[in-house]
């Protein structure tokens, strides 16, 4: 069930990237896709009824720590990408005074 929901989120994200004309909405779509992949990884390592992988006395039955470690890296990369994409769209807005990708393409062609 959780896997299906994750893939639903993934498709929503892809729809946001592909279908939306607005640059900011595209970036939001990118973030949603990224989060869906992160959720997918976390679900791979997850087991019902297990605890966080902090090894102390009495802790048995832990989840797989590797996907969680990997996803920390992915989250950092996602933040970098989002920041860069927002900066680029700000630059484009200052240049073309619009955030609509099809209009920007038209304006850039005439330049």
């Amino acid at each position, binding site marked *: 069930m959780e896997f299906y929901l994750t893939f639903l989120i993934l498709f929503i994200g892809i729809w946001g*990237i592909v279908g939306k004309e607005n640059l900011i909405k595209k970036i939001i779509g*990118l973030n949603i896709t990224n989060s869906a992949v992160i959720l*997918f990884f976390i679900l791979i390592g997850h087991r019902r009824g297990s605890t966080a992988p902090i090894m102390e006395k009495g802790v048995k039955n832990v989840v797989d720590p*590797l*996907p969680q470690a990997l996803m920390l890296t992915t989250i950092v*990369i996602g933040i970098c990408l989002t920041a860069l994409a927002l900066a*680029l769209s700000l630059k484009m807005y200052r240049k073309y005074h619009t955030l609509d990708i099809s209009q920007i393409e038209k304006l850039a062609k005439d330049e």
Partner: protein
Amino acid sequence: MNSIPLFLIIIPLFAACLILLINFLKTHLRLTRLISLSSTIISLIIVGFSTIHILIKKETLIYNLGGWEQPIGICLHMDGLAWFSSLLGAIIALFSLIYSLKEKNYQYKFYFFFLILLAGMQGVVLTNDIFNMFVFFEILSIASYILIAYSQEGKAIKASFNYLIISSLGMSLFLLGIGLIYQGCGSLSLTQIGKTFSIKGGIPPSMFQLTVSLIVVGIGIKAAFIPLHLWLPDAHTYTPTPISALLSGITIKISFLAIWRIINILEAIDFQYLFVWIGSLTALIPVIWALSQTDIKKLLAYYSVSQMGFIITSFGVGSTLSLTASLYHLLNHSFFKSLLFFSMGGVIYATGKRDLRKLSGLFKKMPYVAVSFLIGALSISGIPPFNGFVSRSLIATSLKKYPLPLFLIFLASVGTIASFIKLMMIFLGKERTKENNSGNFGKEKSEFFPDEIKKVPKAMIYPLITLSILCFLSGIFPSWITRGISNFILLKDLPYPIKIYSFSNIGKSLLIFILGIFLYKFITTKYGKRISLKINQMEPGLNNSLLLVIVSLIVFVIFAGIV
């Protein structure tokens, strides 16, 4: 355990950090150049040093990060293929750096991201951990997004944004593929994946196909396969010239080599046959667009895609000969494509113009640039005795069982000749004419005045001359290089000795040349001009190219199921 692979990644990263640390000094720009140049030279020397291990002792250099051995820890591997791409990367990076010293007054940020890009490239080829490969891919991509937008012009920023969105979507798909692999076999080390992640090892076939499709499409965006290449022409056109040479010359190939490695490890043979078709279409279709271009750098950028098609096609055949041909063409293409970009950069530097129609008769003003451009053009169009001829003949020989892809590649070669004759006219066309003799389009008069020309500095000429010599050398010793590639990198013997300079091969290239001249004559007629103007306007936007990514993913999964 050997620390050579580690140093190749650490040195550019360390130099990049050093550049950021010293930027408060007054003489920081000079120091920055010194640091970046010396770090690139040091990594070249280190790769040269590793040649002893790879070629003579024939061993794989392994470094376990943090002392954790495989499959638990991250491990750096340097085998023949990694050595080859690492060496090529270091050489092209050194040339680009020397070229950039005098071209423009680049700030320290340029050199910082340049070195980060270099570190990312070395990391992608050297790592033996698939998630680590993803991280290095992102390092490489973020550096290249910023370098593409370096000029801060509207088109450059748009190209960078397009590349960012398309490539991040691809990277998400790649990451999903990694997740499926981890779910299937519980390991991220490539060696371990090769052992356990296979259909024989209990992975359902549909899951296997989905995984490989996700990975191939995800990285394939960076390697510019046919429906995924739409970001590339803009991105490679509006970057600073040294970066276009680096991106076209080596970065797209490194992405392709990553696919090569993954497919090799997963033994996804069905996919390999799919590449023959993808590759031959990739060779032909961009040529149609390239013929209609008027921007000199954009024309070259389309040829980066087209030449990648040649490499991918012969990779798809999968025999020892064709794999050798593929690597040989990869080597040659990095030489001549960076040579072509450097010489076009010289033209833009000297005249300040990048429109084909406005340039003509530059031969006398810049003979060095013109001659090296001529050598690059002869190489890319496959005229003997230059290197393009050798590798294209090898590819044609290896494609004997596939007549239709061979024909598509033949057509692509004809188109290549036509558009390079067109480009050559900026040097050979008439000087200071009042009518527009040089261009093929429009009715504008040539606005070219000879006194505007700046002198091209020596630092920009040296890389041109060296690359021209390399193009020539790799063309006249074909048997050594083919044997070297097959014995040391692929670790297989060629089935039979190959004769490159045979009568039939030279005859074929002559035929292509003549047909190319006819095609050139056709596109300069009125009718041809009208067609190319129409094609020029048919450039799909960002949304369409994103849609094509999704469509090609679906097609990939379906076709892999059928084959």
